[in-house]
């Protein structure tokens, strides 16, 4: 039963990543990011105690909410971001499919060093790859930084099977909150002339 849930969580995670990659409007990107943290937490709970995983869910939602509020106050929620690289949906769908295939292939290769549950490993590779797609093909601040956030989350999922200490949870939570604050800081305030050092 547990296994079925984790595969369902993986499917939702892939869907969320697809949404993040394909959406152009910022409000949809925020919505997909919000949804992404649910399967992320479910997959994380396979390696970590549920209480620790839930703390990451709350952190993720705080980060997403702060980004949404920042976009709302900066009136950037309705804006659209266009990647400078390939702009076709088909490219991203192909990319996502490739990531899933790499993830499935990696379940054997990674077993030399670590043995995370297969859905977690595939999920982490999908997140890592989606993050790279987002910050690799975007110069606009929001998709670029949200790509970095997604990449960090992907690694957390992978590393959860290596270590499950409360110190690591503390560090990662602090890092995510800092990332959320930094992204919100950029999106909230318009650039004032002479503001930059």
């Amino acid at each position, binding site marked *: 039963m547990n296994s079925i849930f984790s595969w369902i969580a993986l499917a939702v995670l892939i869907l969320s990543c697809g949404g993040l990659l394909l959406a152009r409007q910022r409000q949809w990107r925020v919505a997909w990011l919000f949804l992404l943290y649910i399967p992320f937490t479910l997959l994380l709970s396979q390696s970590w105690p549920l209480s620790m995983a839930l703390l990451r869910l709350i952190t993720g939602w705080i980060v997403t909410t702060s980004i949404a509020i920042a976009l709302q106050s900066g009136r950037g929620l309705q804006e659209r971001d266009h990647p400078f690289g390939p702009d076709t949906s088909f490219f991203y769908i192909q990319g996502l499919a490739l990531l899933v295939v790499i993830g499935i292939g990696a379940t054997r290769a990674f077993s030399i*060093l670590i043995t995370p549950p297969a859905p977690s490993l595939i999920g982490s590779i999908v997140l890592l790859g989606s993050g790279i797609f987002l910050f690799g093909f975007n110069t606009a*601040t929001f998709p670029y930084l949200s790509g970095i956030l997604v990449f960090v989350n992907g690694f957390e999922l992978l*590393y959860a099977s*290596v270590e499950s200490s*409360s110190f690591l949870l503390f560090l*990662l939570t602090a*890092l995510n909150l*800092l990332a959320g604050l930094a992204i919100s800081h950029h999106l909230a305030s318009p650039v004032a002339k002479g503001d930059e*050092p």
Partner: protein
Amino acid sequence: MTAAYLWIFLPILLGIFFFTASRRTMYRWGTLSALGLAILAWLVPLDTPFHFAGLNLKVSSSFDFLGRSLSFDKQAVYILILLYGITAMWFYGVHLLQKTEVLIPWGFLFNGLLLTLLTVRPFLYAAIVLEALGFLLLFLLRPPSPGILRFLAHQTLAFPFLLLAASFGSEPRIMSDAARAPFVIALLGVGLALSAGLFPFHSWMPLLGAELHPYFASFLLWLLPLSTLLFTGNILERFSLYTSLISLFQISGLLMILIGSGEMLVERHWGRALGYAAMIETGYGLLSLSLGQNGHSILLASLFPRSLNFVLWGFSLSILYHRGHGLEQRTLEGLGRRLPFAATSLILAIFSTAGFPLLASFPWRVILWNESSTYSLLWGLLFLISLAGIFGHALRTFNVLFAMESGANDWKQEENLEEKILLSLGVLFLVISGLFPQILMRLL
């Protein structure tokens, strides 16, 4: 009382406090606090009881938290004296330059994080601290500069590699396994290459130099490569993988100094040239690290002249920037005749980076050149060519700043007295540390 309270948490709190302080309070108390922290580090013995104002005190070198610790060893104490001492110089320069006061709170925060990075045990968590440093940089600029975004992206890509390598590398079960060890070495190599900005991941340095105010740029180009380089040195010291990565550091270090000095020679934007200087210094640092344990000591000893070069370079360039309204070469032509102190200091800082005799970096460049020549004559020659590139940039700077139409005689001294004193002191330090490098060696 623990060392972490004094030199990590207190500076971070000071940094937060200074965000709300006035410009005058900032530079006065900021400079005094940084200097005080450096003097405290010099005077206070760790883990040894001492008497102060009738009280028995003891500063513990280790701070434990959730089963992990922040531990200050002898090397960390040396770095923190240097870090806060040099930071005090940066902070003092703030009151003479406009729109740079925000450097003080951020300087304290970055210093606190850098020391966390060097003292956290187990050492693998340092990669997360480095990533946090990248995110903190985002608060500096709106919109974020491509240089900062690229630095953040490189640290983001590096930290999974470093964390996994450190995690597996500390397990003797994995490292004794011949099949798995190369995998760990590859993880570490890629992680360090991305994190330390090894060639070809160095592009954020010239970008940062071109985009920011030169005082900020020089501060960041001093601090960020320093953090990543010390992190690299520390991570290598803790692994038995040293020999496997020597070639990577040698080749990459040599490429960085050659490409950096070549680019610097043809660069017409002096902010970008500053970025190439950071790239070159990283290259020399990597070459030092490739010499093993001895090289690590050379790297630590060369931190002071390297820092001095950057402070003087940044300060004098900022004075020229304000009066010349830009960093493009054409906007600075002939400015040396109006600002002779700033121009001379800038030229001497560049000469010092090139290892010019009697200046601060000279003894360390000679040692490194000697070691490179011992390894291979070709390497020694390439090392000299890299120095020639920086030397060429210094000569061109001289030519541009003091360019004069024939018959013209319009010499002035537009710097104020305080600027002149600071610049002269900087040059004096540059000469003294070049003439008496043994003082630094004794400190080590």
